[in-house]
């Protein structure tokens, strides 16, 4: 069946099987492979993207559920200057990633977390806000630091 999605600002229409998962649509139909699949079951958060501005795990959403809606993936995240979003820059600055597989999903979840939060969230708030995103490499310490640093940067900026 035919679906039309606006992804990272561009509109795409494709004829897909009704069962096509949104993550497969993004990866296979549009070639946006920055969104990773970790668990297939909405647990690990590696596939987190934004659907109409809300962070969602797209490995258990159907492409048809996103029909007519707007999707932002890690490839669509932008900032000023060198083009990096403050959270992307903060993850690098604070060493908030190692193998990087969870990182796109982690950053997309964190972007929404900061959008919904006034000021700099506490460590506890960040941990709570990201508890749907798993990382096996970093032990989370530097991820929390990165999110708080990005929040502080955005505040002062």
């Amino acid at each position: 069946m035919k679906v039309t999605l606006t992804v990272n600002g561009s509109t795409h229409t494709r004829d897909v099987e009704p069962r096509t998962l949104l993550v497969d649509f993004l990866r296979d139909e549009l070639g946006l492979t920055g969104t990773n699949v970790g668990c297939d079951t909405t647990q690990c958060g590696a596939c987190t993207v934004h659907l109409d501005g809300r962070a969602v795990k797209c490995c258990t959403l159907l492409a048809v559920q996103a029909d007519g809606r707007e999707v932002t993936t890690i490839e669509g995240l932008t900032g000023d200057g060198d083009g990096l979003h403050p959270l992307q820059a903060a993850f690098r600055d604070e060493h908030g990633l190692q193998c990087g597989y969870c990182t796109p999903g982690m950053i997309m979840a964190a972007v929404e977390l900061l959008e919904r939060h006034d000021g700099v969230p506490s460590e506890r708030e960040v941990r709570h806000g990201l508890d749907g995103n798993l990382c096996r490499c970093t032990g989370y310490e530097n991820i929390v630091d990165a999110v708080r640093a990005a929040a502080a940067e955005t505040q002062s900026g």
Partner: protein
Amino acid sequence: MGEGTATTRPFGSSVKRVEDPKLITGQVQYVDDLVLPGMAHMAVVRSPHAHARIEGVETGDAASMPGVLGVFTGPDLADAGFGPIPCAWNLPDAELVMPEHPPVAIDRVRYVGDAVAIVVAETAYGARDAAEAVEVRYEELPAVTGARDALADGAPRLHEDAPGNRAFHWTVSGGDVDAAFEQAEVVVRDEIVNQRLVPSAMEPRRALARWNAAEEDVTLWVTSQNPHIARFLLSLDTGIPEHRIRVISTDIGGGFGSKIPHYPEDSMVIFASQAVGRPVKWTESRSENCQATIHGRDQLQEVEMAAASDGRILGLRATTHANMGAYLSTAAPGVPTILHGLMLSNCYDIPAVHEDVIGVFTNTTPTDAYRGAGRPEAIFLVERMVDLVARELGMDPADVRRENLIPPFEDGHDVATGITYDTGNYGPAFERALEMADYDEFRRARGEESEDGKLRGIGLSSYVEICGLGPSEVAGAVGFGGGLWESAIVRFHPSGKVNVFVGVNPHGQGEETTFAQIVADEMGIPVEDVEVKHGDTDETPMGWGTYGSRTTAVGGGALMGALGKLKEKGKKVAAHLLEASEEDVVFEDGRFHVRGAPDVGKSVQEVALAAYTAWDYPDDLEPGFEASAFFDPSNFVYPFGTHIAVVEVDPETGEIALERYIAVDDVGPQINPMIVEGQVHGGVVQ
């Protein structure tokens, strides 16, 4: 620092990782991101039974589904010359049995997840649909999952050639253990279950093969921590000669040991690509990852420790049942033995140690190396027994440890298990951790009523770990089927920029950055002028891969060797250009200059260019400015430290909270402190 303006040395600086830009923007190319022209997809039909005889596999319905290119079973792979998956660690003097492990089961399945058939189809969805349409008739057999149960009389037998399900019986023994227990004033005993776990890298496994029939060669993109080992082993079991196999594992989403083994699916995708004449990709689901990727740990340890009344440890005796799962995975026999039993003296002077390790086949997923691989199982065993000694004697656990810590040494220290620790000074790390935890105050206040009614406890663990695997001579002596040296090629280009090619294969540990820092530091060039290449067997020199805390310790050694050769060659080139004698040329801060005359010199970039143009060049010197080195260490490295956990328990609800965690680790000189801290964080939390 050449033309650069940096004022601090690259070595020792928290340089931001060069790996990160592609990872934070989604531009990295993991194996599953690859799409090749004509690519088909593979799905694996797996056993739902822990143990069963295969009575028949009906493939007709699946094969006739739209888009299905082929359905294949174990005999199809065998007929095509795809042999059993080898185990690469043949422990000597252990009566080790290595039963055949066909990539796809032929007549029997031995664990839930054992492969029974493979389906190749136009799409990944289609392959999974067809896999569900494959009908397998099983005759269920009794199964056994616990190691000790599997040794019992009458237990179901997994392999005809492994009576009693015994995979091996390995022993380590040093000192007079019987005498130690006779002299003991206290003996403590415990049975420790070091439970099985699923390694769970964020990225499950993937494999993509492209067989080229005209060239009779294959390229395999696969999630491997050690692509050169993968290629070597594939040449043994696929029948494809090693020089016609290219393995590419450049970007990997974590491994933690689970991506060391050579897996059946590596062979399956190559077979499938040959069979359908197209590239074939397999993408492991998380469910498959839990079933068919190796598990870690799973030891059952019966332990007793003998001590004197002052807390001195006199001896340690253990019988460990190591659950190997249904088959011996690539490095599995070495994990509960060499990497475990040899560490049973930990950081203490224990005069007598004896351990029997019995490897056992069970109807479970094969086990192999997982994060620390055998060593955490050894440290927990020893530390648990030390705590029991303290309790038995009414001593503070810290005092028992103080009593037994090996005194400082710089020229090696032999322990009863037969290995020699390189250097160590365990006391200061231990005392520092206690101080950070305010241990004495905590112990003093112990037993006082807390205001919130919660109970608080403090736990200590000191360790020394066999790392930097390792001398090849030792690898050979303990039955590892390969060497454990490393390799590096450093190639300056005519413009003065540098590529480094290494045999190790980092996948999150950050050596693309730290190796660039080493090159920059040694050659006096900017870090950004260096790019490190790894993971492609056609591009990089043979090396044994990334695991066993060896990448920097051994791979870095090879890199230093290559850099040393380049400096020597550079002196010859510069001496010629400067019309000086080679002995008078020194290399400092990226410049070769005449000793005592810093202004008379050539930059390393100028020397590189001169070596490539070779217009004005020594007659007896080869052109070019690259060097290659292999490094085989003379010993392992033995880092050490003390960790302390403060834990709070709510006696009403049983809820446990980790209040504080203190880690003091001896890491040696830090190339990049930011990365070192990140590695420690990850190790502690995982």
